[in-house]
């Protein structure tokens, strides 16, 4: 294929991945909708032995995902069982579509790299596509390892929004400005994308944690606990997952933004750290996530406070990507 052929293929593939991902998101929404009439975990008849026998066990055990939905609702031969089957089917379809969207998007990113003959993350459009590919990769890996299908709606929804809006800052494939001619582009930006992908998963888990703990406070009676949210894992398990992905992402962010970034800045601009808006927000993001890690070990901040900080941290990360790129001028102005 010619360079132009690769570029065109990449564009079509990005569009296709966006559509497939949107369908995946709709399926996750359907899973949620079908799950609305179902009883919660604890009240469901014939629930799994683990949840039935030792609630304390499930409390600290990370594997409380909706993987075992069928057993939870299984023997209850009411309308809920039917909805449960549909909800299950919707989830499986959603996961398959997510895998498909991931494969198409990875192909798009690879083709973009071949078209431009460099790493495919040299401007805002490419970063958005590559970063969503990373987000989906992180999500699918975690689905394998930790049964986190319950995060699917948030992850795919976010991906659709980013891919869909990426058309507004689309740039055709081409070579880079001299400041980006460096292998640090590979290291620095890849680290930012991986950390960002994990930050999104952590933010999703923290958001659902906040929702569910609010629901728990508002619905003290287990008999009243009907709906999708009660099929989510325990708040403890969500908190645990959020911590794990943040503990994974934070050192990568430290390396990418505060070590690799300054080293490259020294080569490109002659100084390690110059309080460029991108650097400022990378620093703010780092400090907020450092705050999150401390909050988890501070009385009065555990749980809710920490989860809110995780969301604030992700908001800072997003602002650094969108706000600083589009509204603030600085040395990192690679949006166009």
């Amino acid at each position, binding site marked *: 294929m010619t360079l132009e052929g690769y570029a065109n293929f990449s564009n079509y593939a990005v569009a296709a991945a966006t559509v497939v991902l949107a369908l995946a998101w709709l399926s996750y929404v359907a899973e949620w909708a079908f799950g609305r009439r179902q009883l919660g975990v604890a009240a469901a008849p014939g629930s799994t032995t683990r949840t039935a026998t030792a609630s304390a066990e499930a409390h600290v055990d990370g594997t409380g995902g909706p993987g075992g939905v069928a057993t939870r609702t299984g023997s209850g031969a009411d309308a809920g069982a039917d909805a449960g089957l549909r909800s299950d089917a919707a989830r499986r379809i959603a996961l398959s579509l997510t895998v498909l969207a991931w494969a198409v998007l990875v192909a798009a990113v690879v083709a973009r790299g071949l078209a431009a003959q460099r790493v495919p993350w040299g401007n805002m459009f490419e970063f958005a596509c590559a970063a969503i590919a990373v987000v989906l990769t992180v999500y699918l890996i975690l689905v394998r390892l930790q049964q986190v299908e319950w995060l699917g709606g948030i992850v795919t929804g976010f991906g659709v929004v980013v891919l869909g809006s990426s058309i507004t800052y689309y740039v055709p494939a081409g070579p880079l400005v*001299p400041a980006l*001619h460096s292998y640090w582009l590979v290291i620095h930006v890849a680290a930012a994308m991986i950390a960002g992908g994990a930050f999104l998963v952590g933010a999703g888990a923290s958001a659902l944690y906040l929702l569910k703990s609010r629901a728990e406070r508002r619905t003290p009676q287990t008999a009243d606990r009907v709906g999708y949210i009660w099929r989510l894992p325990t708040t403890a398990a969500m908190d645990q997952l959020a911590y794990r992905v943040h503990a994974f992402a934070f050192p990568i962010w430290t390396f990418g933004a505060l070590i690799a970034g300054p080293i490259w800045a020294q080569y490109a601009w002659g100084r390690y750290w110059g309080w460029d808006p991108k650097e400022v927000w990378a620093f703010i993001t780092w400090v907020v996530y450092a705050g999150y890690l401390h909050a*988890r070990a501070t*009385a009065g901040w555990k749980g809710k406070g920490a989860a809110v900080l995780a969301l604030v941290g992700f908001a800072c990360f997003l602002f650094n990507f969108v706000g600083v790129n589009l509204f603030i001028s600085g040395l990192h102005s690679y949006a166009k």
Partner: protein
Amino acid sequence: MTDDDNGPQTARRSALAPALPTRHFLRWVWRQLTSMRTALFLLLLLALAAIPGSLVPQQGVDAQQVLTYRAAHPTLAPLWDKLGVFSVYTSPWFSAIYLLVLVSLVGCILPRAGVYARALRARPPKAPRNFDRLPHSRTYETDLAPEAVLAGASQVLRARRARVDVAGDELRAESGYLREAGNLVFHVCLVIVLVGVAGGALFGYRGGAIITEGGGFSNTLTQYDDFSSGALFDTEDLPPFSLRLDDFSATFQQDGPQRGAPRSFEATGTYTSEPGAQPTPYDIEVNHPLEVDGTSVFLIGQGYAPVIRVTDGDGNVAYEGAVPFLPADGTYTSTGVVKVPDAQPEQLGFQGFFLPTAVSVGDGAPISAFPAAANPVLGLFAYTGDLGMDDGAAQSVFVLDKDELTQVTMRDDKPLRILLSLGQVTELPQGRGSVEFVGLRQFVKLQFSSSPGLSIPLWGTSIGVLGLIMSLSIRPRRLWVRARSTGSRTVVEVAGLDRVSRGDLAADLDHFVEQLQDGP
């Protein structure tokens, strides 16, 4: 750091107490300052304090933008000045916050290092009397003797690199000591990085200079356009290298939507590391600085320097040379100033613009369509009078002081506009001489900087990240096994306690019990 503290209790108790003696008060302040809650608060405050610097232009980052901002916000600017918003990162309040963070950090590290040193020498703690009270415990019966059970458990746990003690009928094990070590290493490294960066700035220097093709630079203070150095740097110690710029080449995207985007910049020439040394060829590109004698030379800017010849009213060449015009946008629309103090009968000054590829749009002034020099045009306004260069005050070469100058006009009193293509000459009215656009060169802006000891923060951060990974991934755990003989059988109780919640204790206990039951 990552463990609970007694901050709130201490605070509440002290708040109720009557006036404290100074010593106690200081201790109270120190406790507050080094508590986890304060550390968290200071971190968030630091994040908050950093925000204004990204929204308002900063003096130290882009002084030009600060001027533009001042002009656009005449009412806000004085207030921002008072609050130090134009230089957030050197302002007293920002410095106060990060110094408090630093104190809080040190105040956390010191006591915790002591605690950790004691913990390293301590043995695993005794088993609680009642295992049922722990979050996770298991019980099973076996035919093995209690001693054999404990020996087997000890072997399994030692293989997992836990610290194991057997006392009587119970086994005590603790693992994950390295978590706190990693935690301490990371925080110590943070301090080293902050101190290292500050130290490097004290002994280093940085300066910028504009050099035109064919021109040279020697590393002395007078040759710099701007220069700053640390408090402990002696400008006598500037390394005595010099360099010449032979050629600068810039390429730009010729077609497509990104037409005009820069593709490569390359400066070539020779340098000598000390007077009399053999000149060595060099090649500086963006991302590829030149290293000479502890100083790094970076290519941080470029532009055009039209060669201008000014002949005065007496017919003498009063000025001839390349004048750097500073680019103002992506198409290298550049502005510059020519000062001719030697012109007779009166001094001459010119202010104007340079367009590398000029195109006419309608009736207006030409604009630049492309950054490469395809159709260079020089536009100038002329002034006569006193340039103000004789009173000894320092003057910028890029600004014309018009206080004592009058603009040269045409017969109809309209300002004289000079537009010159390469090689063209224009006569000035009233026999004041002529201006000629003789040739075109390019200039580079080089930055020279030296920051000794920078490997310290670099190593600091690298080791710090390793410590961070350790502190986030290692989870300390305590395990106890109790084996009691009840006649023919042995009842074995196993219990565990995670000091940091990690969610897999139940599964691990099951696995551990299986290992014990299978026997060694």
